[in-house]
């Protein structure tokens, strides 16, 4: 039995360490450790609840908008604020952009080189590669010239003796099985994806001023105001020069047009490049359907509200799928969430499982002093807490959301997922493992990108009808708040279910707890010694070459774990 350590696991959010025990060429047991702590929950204490989202957003540079949104929603819930429809639409556009861009980055930026051999790609023939690209779909917008440029770029990078991001990759590993032409097409798409992602996140910049960390959220709505539609006369006493130098307001027609172009661009990219590419990779690895299946419990908090009711309809539905039974949707409520710190570096708690609404965070590091070789033998081994839903370890993320949507019945998402999975030629239950984690994000990106068009239409129609409200400011003044209040919100980041719980006392934050997608998926063992979702999925994964364990990276990256989020 050999113990294998991968630290740092690259191409994930934050600092991830993986230790596995190998037996007969496969993983017998696995431990995941988040090895960087910041303590955002504690830093939030004592601050103005109206600025909490700014700090919460900095939990993650990739999924920050999800935390900002979760935070303003939790404060709004505590204070009883309901946001206007325009604010809901703007928030959905920001969150939708984050989700679509994150999925594309997860596949092209973080997962691709686990499946694609960049070393082989330089041997590809551009003409044959273009032929392969056409076979993926009629609309693949790439030609021989672009492919040849991509090939030369990789070649020049490698030939110069400085391979940059490609340096030290496991090139030539027997687990790579795509043709050099397929490798080249996918890498060329990855280059394109970086540029596309920069452009599409412009939607966040147009609404929020910048990205990462768009800045126009507010407790009560959004700061992004539409142009003044009233009379523009010079009021008495008002200086002419002042009115003549109007600066554009935040939500001009030009900006809405620019967003529409970017949304159309996103739909095209997701439908014509992203989804066909994931299907191509999945169909070439049909034998991987049996790996990385894990325990089979899936949880989605649901997000992207479609109306302004107390319990709005959600584009991504809420619920649970237990034991891979998509025929039955199990209810989900925030009260089912509880965390264990039995194997994490925090003060032990009286109860084995603590609900986030009632618990604090007191770090206490008792792991090995650096430098260290292994965490073996340490009962506590991670900065990630172990959240459980009604005592069950669950998987969250785009696959979980798609399966919950399937269980909820109807809608665009399940239909498209089953169609895409059929195209991979894999067995019918392949969706529950590695192949589902490849394809489901692309399917979801297509669905959300298409839906963003409708939100833009609705927003423009509202503005045209004279509904210019973007914020409810009735509770902006802290004097209007009760002495104590509690609030929570549950929703989704691109990577999975996110919940924020907080208490306000004397107009300051008194308690703050975050449970994030990274906390769910990269969870260590809980009080009963049961592995977290990703630890469980790693068990049984074959490792052909222990010096280059790309099989393990495939499973890890399939979950797209985020440790900055997971630890916070």
């Amino acid at each position, binding site marked *: 039995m050999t113990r294998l*350590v991968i*630290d*740092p696991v*690259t*191409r994930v*959010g934050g*600092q991830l*360490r993986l230790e596995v025990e190998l037996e007969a060429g496969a993983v017998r047991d696995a431990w995941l450790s988040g090895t*960087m702590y*910041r*303590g955002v929950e504690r830093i939030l204490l*004592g*601050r*103005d609840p109206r600025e909490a989202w*700014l*700090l919460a957003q*900095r*939990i993650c*540079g*990739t999924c920050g908008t999800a935390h900002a949104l979760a935070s303003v929603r939790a404060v709004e819930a505590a204070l009883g604020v309901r946001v206007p429809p325009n604010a809901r639409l703007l928030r959905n556009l920001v969150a939708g952009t984050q989700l679509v861009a994150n999925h594309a980055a997860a596949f092209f*930026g973080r997962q691709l080189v686990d499946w694609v051999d960049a070393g082989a790609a330089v041997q590809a023939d551009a003409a044959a590669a273009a032929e392969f690209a056409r076979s993926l779909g009629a609309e693949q917008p790439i030609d021989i010239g672009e492919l040849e*440029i991509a090939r*030369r*770029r990789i070649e*020049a990078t490698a*030939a*110069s003796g*400085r*391979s*940059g991001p490609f340096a*030290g990759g*496991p090139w030539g590993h027997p687990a790579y099985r795509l043709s050099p032409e397929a490798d080249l097409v996918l890498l060329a798409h990855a*280059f394109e994806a*970086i*540029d596309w992602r*920069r452009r599409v*996140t*412009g939607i966040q*910049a*147009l609404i*929020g001023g*910048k990205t*990462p*960390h768009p*800045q126009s959220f507010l407790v009560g709505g959004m*700061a992004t105001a539409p142009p*003044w539609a009233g009379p523009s006369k010079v009021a008495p006493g008002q200086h002419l020069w*002042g009115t003549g130098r109007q*600066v*554009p*307001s*935040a939500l001009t027609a030009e900006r809405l047009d*620019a967003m529409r172009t970017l949304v159309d661009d996103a739909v095209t990219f997701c439908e014509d490049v992203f989804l066909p590419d994931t299907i191509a990779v999945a169909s070439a690895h049909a034998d991987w359907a049996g790996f990385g299946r894990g325990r089979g419990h899936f949880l989605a908090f649901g997000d992207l509200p479609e109306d302004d009711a107390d319990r709005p309809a959600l584009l991504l539905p809420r619920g649970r799928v237990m034991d891979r039974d998509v025929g039955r949707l199990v209810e989900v409520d925030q009260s089912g969430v509880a965390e264990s710190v039995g194997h994490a570096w925090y003060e032990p708690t009286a109860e084995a499982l603590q609900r986030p609404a009632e618990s604090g965070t007191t770090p206490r*590091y008792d792991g090995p*002093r*650096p430098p260290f*070789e292994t965490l073996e033998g340490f009962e506590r081994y991670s900065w990630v807490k172990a959240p459980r839903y009604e005592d069950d370890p669950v998987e969250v993320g785009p696959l979980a959301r798609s399966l919950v949507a399937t269980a909820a019945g109807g809608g665009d998402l399940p239909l498209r997922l089953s169609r895409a999975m059929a195209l991979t030629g894999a067995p019918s239950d392949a969706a529950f493992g590695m192949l589902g984690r490849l394809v489901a994000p692309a399917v979801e990106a297509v669905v959300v990108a298409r839906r963003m068009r409708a939100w833009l239409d609705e927003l423009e129609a509202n503005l045209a009808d004279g509904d210019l409200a973007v914020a409810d400011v009735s509770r902006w003044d*802290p004097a209007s708040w009760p002495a104590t209040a509690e609030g929570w919100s549950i929703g989704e980041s691109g990577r999975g279910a996110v919940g924020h719980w907080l208490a306000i006392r004397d107009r300051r934050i008194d308690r703050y707890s975050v449970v994030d997608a990274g906390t769910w998926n990269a969870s260590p063992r809980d009080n009963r010694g049961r592995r977290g979702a990703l630890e469980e999925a790693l068990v049984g994964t074959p490792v052909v070459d222990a010096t280059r364990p790309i099989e393990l*990276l495939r499973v890890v990256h399939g979950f797209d774990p985020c440790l*900055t989020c997971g630890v916070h």
Partner: protein
Amino acid sequence: MTAATIQGELGALLERGLSRRAFLAFCGAMTTLLALPPRYAPRVAAAVTASPRIPLIWLRGAGCGGDGEALLRTAEPDAVSLLLESLSVDYLEILMAASGTAAADVRSATMAAAPNGYLAVIEGAVAGADDGAWHTVGGRAFRDVAREVCAGALGVIAVGSCAFDGGLAAATGGTIGASGAGVVAGGRPFISLPGCPVNAANLAATFVHFLTFNELPPADLRGRPLFAYGSLIHNQCERRAHFEFGEFVEAWGDEGAQKGWCLYKMGCKGPEAYANCPAVRYDDGASWPIGSGQVCIACTMPGFWDSMGPAFRRLPPLASFVPWLTADFAGQVLVGGTAGLAAAHGTASVARAALRRRRAARARVAPAADAVPEPVVAVEAPAEPITPAEPNAPPDVAPAADMPAADMPAADVPAAEGPAEDAEDEPEPGLEAEAANPPEVPPEPKLEAAPRPKPVRPPAAEDDP
């Protein structure tokens, strides 16, 4: 490699059918952003297309990873060109193919193959408590890895507010002993690009400056490059005219918000923040926070989570009984004062002379000193003095063309020598001395010489409960 092999950025652009003219336009844009004379553009072009590429080791400390994301948002040059052709980004955890020991080997190989020949970039704070046990990479304290990498670097670039001074992890309530990357820079040439996250355009411009001149751009005492952090946001703000005319957003989404009025009353920290956000904006110029209707949170300033917060509390007015005294004017007085301080930094005799001059000045303008009580200036003082070469020069104006053809074009400003913490303590006593003394420019004559056409009274002091 054949003769047709791509040569760097220029080759890539030409291969993609873009004209040399477009490439030179990019170089022109870069020289403008760096506040270089236009005739530097060909030199920038030559540097960006040069071979071999400079290796880059990008380390991620205790931060959110948003600055690495910002790197992928660079538009000019586009991120792929920057990563593959202008630089050799050998170690960048969010992107690199190698993992685990293979990743550490890549890092070591670059350090061994190019001793004193690579750039180190650090994002995120450095965790110092408990021997760095709160943040480990490969079983080692991040702090130790960063020290090792910086020791052999050509230069160290700290990106983002966390690498500047510890940022969020160092805010009140933080427990990891977070500090900025200065503590690991080990005396290597050091520059800091605060901002939450760093503006991708400034990051790219810093790389381009290094490629062009083989050194980091000139910086202030805190290590912030003057081309990006030399001017007050308030002075460059597109909504500034509304401030002058007393047109303020009074509530979110109100008429003022719809008309794009000034956000000062909503808590905007633009009057206290130094950065080029209004001129450069974000995401290829799409927008910036104030342009999207939200207040500035002064994320380029030291300790901004505590020193500039709460985000939505209005800045205290300077003095409700001196209505003409704007933040801008006070800033000029302060900046002028700190420029004097920088000179005093050198020898004790100079300092003593300055003290004598100030005493004389105090004697001359004693009545004016009563008119501007000390606490007023002290309250308004930025947490850290800035010493830009030309405090009032807008950043989008290129320097005069007849500038001496020196490699360091901005000015002979005392750049931060060595780690930032060396310089940290020194300005404070001077600042107090400055605040305790009356401004060099007596305010009374100024009032008489240039009375405001329509004085707008700053809003009354009205703290949030």
